[in-house]
């Protein structure tokens, strides 16, 4: 590996892990192509440093569309969500994948769900069983985010705001999935913990902190 590439790889560490996993490969490629077309001049490096420092700062802020911020576990959830859709070979990232994404880490949402006595494996099994095996990914495709998943992410940001929390955390994502109408995955969550109870708990937590 050449020196230029090593420097860029070190700079990439400034981005949050989830962002790096999602776009690191593409960014490195764009960097290499710019380097070979523009040459390793002082100007090139000044621009590269400025680009990384300004954009990494912005990504670290991790702002939602409503302007509030995600916690690190919430951001990691989005990464795992995509990984889960990939693993299951599904074209569209939906609410099921968001929940599976939550279940991939030790987070508050998982604590809340497993408190009911259900194990992680049971919950995971139920969600995967409910997934339609409809259109499967071909080798050339990447899963894309379905509008349903996007509106859940926005709902999570709104719920966090209404609950007086300045960060969107994993329980807010869980609540947003549970509040979706006519959704099998929402029913699964409600059987483990009713969404009203979940909201009340989050509300109390918000007041105590």
């Amino acid at each position, binding site marked *: 590996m050449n020196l230029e590439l090593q420097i860029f790889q070190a700079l990439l560490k400034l*981005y949050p892990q989830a*962002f790096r996993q*999602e*776009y690191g490969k*593409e*960014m*490195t*490629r*764009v*960097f290499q*192509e*710019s380097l070979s077309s523009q040459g390793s001049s002082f100007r090139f490096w000044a*621009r*590269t440093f*400025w*680009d*990384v420092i*300004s*954009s*990494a700062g*912005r*990504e670290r802020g991790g702002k939602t*569309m*409503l302007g509030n911020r995600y916690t690190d576990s919430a951001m990691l959830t989005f990464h795992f969500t995509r990984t889960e859709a990939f693993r299951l070979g599904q074209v569209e990232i939906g609410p099921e994948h968001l929940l599976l994404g939550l279940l991939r880490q030790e987070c508050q949402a998982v604590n809340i769900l497993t408190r009911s006595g259900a194990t992680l494996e049971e919950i995971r099994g139920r969600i995967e069983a409910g997934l339609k095996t409809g259109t499967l990914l*071909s080798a*050339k*495709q*990447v899963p*894309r*985010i379905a*509008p349903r998943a*996007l509106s859940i*992410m926005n709902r999570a940001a709104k719920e966090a705001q209404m609950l007086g929390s300045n960060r969107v955390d994993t329980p807010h994502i869980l609540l947003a999935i549970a509040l979706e109408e006519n959704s099998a995955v929402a029913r699964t969550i409600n059987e483990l913990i009713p969404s009203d109870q979940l909201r009340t708990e989050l509300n109390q937590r918000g007041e105590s902190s």
Partner: protein
Amino acid sequence: MEAAMPETPTPAVFHILLSLADQERHGYGIMQDVLERTNNQIHLGPGTLYGTIKRMLEAGQIEELPEREDENNQRRRYYKITNAGKKTARTEAERLEHLVNLARSKRLLPQLRGVR
């Protein structure tokens, strides 16, 4: 209270929308197109480029397409503009047009000949 929705897109967002207005492109293709169109004035570095792409995907202004090979047989992630993205670009272009007309009426810019 939530702020009113129509926001002025950042220059990076507007340039990416312009690049994708007429064809699907991958990240490096967008960067090259912006450079060419702006006479090497606007360099979208990898961080700004993918950070902006990420936010535009979240806002539904662009869409990711299945990965495919580019002209050099490299696997790439391609993006295309959505109807919402076109609308954002059009609204911004109209806003800029209005400003230019205003500047013209204040004689900051020469009057257009042949235009009524």
